[in-house]
């Protein structure tokens, strides 16, 4: 249910004029809440930024999320992080 919860919070923040990017771990559920900007990641539950102590991966995910924040032009923009 976490992906639904995060999607609903994203919508509430955007309605208050705060830009958001949501990381999605379970796209089938995330899609139901229609968040405005989503970064889908291939990691397991509990690791939205990637595995522990994998600094390069975590940094790449965060950078991609920030890039999505500034480049998305339309609601429901989805990007996908692909592990190298």
């Amino acid at each position, binding site marked *: *249910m*976490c*992906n*639904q*919860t*995060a999607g*609903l*919070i*994203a*919508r*509430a*923040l*955007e*309605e*208050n*004029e*705060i*830009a*958001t*990017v*949501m*990381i*999605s*771990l*379970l*796209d*089938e*559920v995330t899609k*139901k809440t*229609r*968040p*405005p*900007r989503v970064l*889908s*990641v*291939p990691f*397991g*539950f*509990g*690791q*939205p*930024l*990637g*595995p*522990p*102590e994998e*600094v390069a991966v*975590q*940094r790449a*995910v*965060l*950078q991609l*999320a*920030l*890039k999505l*924040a*500034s480049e998305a032009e339309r*609601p*429901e*923009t989805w990007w996908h992080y692909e592990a190298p």
Partner: protein
Amino acid sequence: MADLKDLEPASRRFLERYPFPDLPAPILTPLSKPVSRCRLAFVTTAGLHKQDEPPFSRFFEKSDCSYREIPNQASMNELAISHTSKEFNRDGVNKDINVVLPFDRAEELIASGNLGTVNRRHFSFMGSLPRTGDLRKRTAPEVARKLKEDQVDLVLLTPV
């Protein structure tokens, strides 16, 4: 990428039958400034809270929509996790908080000039919510108002 079939059978059946609401298209708030000048905050659904604070309810049916404030740069030595999900593997965040709240990664981006600043506080919800009315009508808008007061430009949401 996680899939419904990766869940425990009971969890999978619950989600397959869950009456997701039919939501309208979302609003997209454009960033008003470059990311290099933005104030960033994190909102997670990992059920994190300070150790001296009340935990989230351990009863799934209660659908605890409350939230806790997490200070910037908090460490897992100061925090606890209370979450009803069986799928949430806590080992990662217990070993490295950046897995859920990427404090160190954000500081590195600030140091390199790619991010403005990080907010003094972040927020955690507990994401296993079978009923979301209180979240949608009260607690999520409350957090939105607090982040607006803090002049946060951008929020990264990290479900678990």
